[in-house]
């Protein structure tokens, strides 16, 4: 399945990427599975998605958590805790 990843703010800068289309070779991945996949890339991906880092996620523009299941064609965004207002 294909997931559209998007990265914002300091996470985008740390990764040097606004996003990408990720091809995922497993059934019913959860957000946590995508995080593990990205962490496994090593280097700045491992740093940015390290287990002690606080990140938020949104599936199809709705806040979600790491147990949220994903479907083909989903947009999955990762970002630091928000600071609006």
């Amino acid at each position, binding site marked *: 399945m294909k997931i559209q990843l998007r990265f*914002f703010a300091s996470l985008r800068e740390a990764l040097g990427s606004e996003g990408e289309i990720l091809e995922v070779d497993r059934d019913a991945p959860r957000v946590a599975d995508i995080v593990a996949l990205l962490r496994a890339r090593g280097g700045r991906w491992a740093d940015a998605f390290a287990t002690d880092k606080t990140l938020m996620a949104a599936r199809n*523009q*709705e806040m979600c958590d790491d147990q949220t299941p994903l479907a083909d064609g989903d947009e999955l965004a990762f*970002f630091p805790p*928000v600071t*609006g*207002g």
Partner: protein
Amino acid sequence: MERGQIIVTSAPFDPHAESERLRAENPAIGAVVDFIGWMRDFNDGDPVDGMTLEHYPGMTEKALGKIVDEALQRWDLLGVRVVHRVGELRPGDPIVLVAVASAHRGEAFRACEFLIDYLKTRAPFWKKERTASGERWVEARDTDHEAEARWRTEQGENDERNG
């Protein structure tokens, strides 16, 4: 009538005029409570001369809409108007207006505080400020998350009492 209005804008806005727009809509409005957030010229001990407000286009409006819908369900309100800047800001610029109208003041005060507490923890905006030593991302505050958690606890207690 649509009771919740949400505006995300890259242009400067006048928070007092926007609040007046809300009030003028409905003569039944007896109370308006405004929260206005302003950009300051210092933060975390350093002078700040500018800020870039990043957001997640599409999700920003959706997230604000959900927060406003929750306030409209939770309190008896006549209207809500939320205006939030994005893009480049200078010290002294208004960042956000949360204006809440009701028949009487109790609902408006509570809903306004709820709305800004939820906006600060759930709406996809990120501030990058410019100081003499360069640019830095503003960090989220624990106190904002504690405030948001108190509203969720209170709602849980209300649900138990009424359920």
